[in-house]
């Protein structure tokens, strides 16, 4: 019983860690960045390469993946993405799917089509008991990192002026510029952070799932579900949504396997009908 709950939370955290970067680019910047998975994949493949080829310790790979993906994000933002902020959502979809296709082919070219796996260091494998239930060490590790991320991101957004300047820039970039907000820089920094988080998510993901070139498409639906159920105005929303979805999915498959496959989708549809802005969106926001 408790094990199922913990497993559900851990699964939710996996969803969240993969989606957290998207909370930033899609949620805060209002950019439909379907290429989010590409940045996560960059972090994942970097980790795989560093560990397999260079023997870099896993824990060092995490910050490396963040920095690598952030740098990649920054470069792409400066060269390509910045031309798309004032285009329609549909253009953004088309553009970012294009990037996904490109990245799939490139990774395929470099690494081949088969699954890539890393083996975690011993101190992160194994299980330990907790109130009579047992849970994997790595899952606890992921839960802890997610918790930390949520708190720090949420603080950064609500307690600093950066958050409100960012939202102003998203609301009306033209006027924000006229009010002295350096929209260009704010977007670049935010996009880099979002991409970096995606990379970190990918790196952490290597501990649970395997990577192949179709990763950005395969997980896209999951990212989007977490964000839409959680609402796009906060970081805590998707965090709680991820937990809810994870627990419901795992519990559903455990107790009623026949309908297990429907659960996540049904929750999503029901939530969005009852609360179109997402379950945990700021009530006041339109």
């Amino acid at each position, binding site marked *: 019983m408790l094990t199922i709950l913990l497993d559900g939370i851990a699964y939710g955290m996996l969803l969240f860690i993969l989606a957290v970067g998207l909370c930033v680019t899609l949620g805060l910047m209002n950019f439909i960045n379907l290429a989010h998975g590409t940045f996560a994949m960059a972090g994942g493949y970097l980790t795989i390469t560093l560990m397999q080829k260079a023997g870099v310790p896993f824990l060092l790979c995490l910050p490396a993946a963040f920095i690598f993906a952030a740098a990649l994000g920054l470069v792409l933002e400066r060269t390509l993405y910045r031309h798309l902020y004032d285009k329609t959502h549909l253009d953004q979809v088309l553009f970012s799917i294009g990037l996904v296709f490109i990245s799939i082919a490139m990774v395929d070219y470099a690494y081949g089509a088969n699954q890539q796996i890393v083996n975690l260091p011993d101190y992160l494998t194994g299980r330990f008991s907790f109130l009579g239930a047992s849970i994997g060490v790595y899952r606890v590790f992921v839960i802890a990192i997610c918790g930390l991320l949520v708190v720090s991101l949420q603080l950064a957004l609500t307690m600093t*002026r950066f958050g*409100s*300047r960012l*939202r*102003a820039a*998203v*609301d*009306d970039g*033209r*006027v*924000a*510029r*006229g*009010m*002295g*907000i*350096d*929209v*260009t820089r704010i977007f670049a920094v935010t996009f880099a952070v979002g991409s970096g988080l995606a990379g970190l998510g990918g790196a952490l993901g290597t501990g649970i799932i395997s990577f192949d070139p179709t990763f950005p498409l395969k997980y896209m639906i999951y990212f989007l579900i977490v964000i839409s159920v959680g609402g796009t*105005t906060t970081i805590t929303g998707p965090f709680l949504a991820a937990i809810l979805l994870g627990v419901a999915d795992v519990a559903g498959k455990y107790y009623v396997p026949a309908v297990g496959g429907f659960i996540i989708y049904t929750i999503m549809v029901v939530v969005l009908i009852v609360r179109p802005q997402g379950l945990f969106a700021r009530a*006041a*926001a*339109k």
Partner: protein
Amino acid sequence: MSDLLQLENIAAGYGEAQVLQNISFSLKEGEALALLGRNGTGKTTLINTIIGLTRRRNGTIHLAGADITKMRADQRAMAGIGWVPQERNIFRSLTVEENITAVATSGPWTLARIYQMFPRLAERKRNLGTQLSGGEQQMLAVGRALALNPRVLLLDEPLEGLAPIIVDELLAAIRRIVVEERMAAIIVEQSARKILPLTERAIILDRGTIVHEGPSPELAEDAVRLANIMGIAGTPGAH
């Protein structure tokens, strides 16, 4: 030499369309300028060109002697240009207070002072931008521009939608700011009679060019002339 803002031979527009041609004028510290003209003659376009949000095709702009022609809008704002857009453009997902603090720089205009000027904003400080009445949005737009502590204030129809009693107060306040704090201001207004008494000079635009430039009191006294220049049939302000 004490020109604070100087436009020379400006031509600008949107995309392919050119709206303004040959605009030259200057503004001194502590001077208020009325920008008049009929609908669609390019007043807003001129304001937007000064702040740097149109496509400039020709000419230069100087602020306090420095060439700001090539600067981006946000750099110009930081260099000392405050802007009240015609459509107010309150940031909708920010609260009233955030709308001000997000753009504020240090200077005499603090949050407290803005609230003091518009007590209504203090009462509504937690409302989101979209949850304000039209007039409250207008007050916030003015407050937000002041929070930048600019040297030049560009006000695009700032009186629109304000109650008469607030209009009086705001006009008095602008007057005070210009005189006491040596801020310069360009005020766009549809109703000349409200702002001519307040300004030293007036510019009248027609089809994107300056068709008249002169002291405000002169225009204010000579209603017929004003009407002629602006191409207005009726006589404004007369009942």
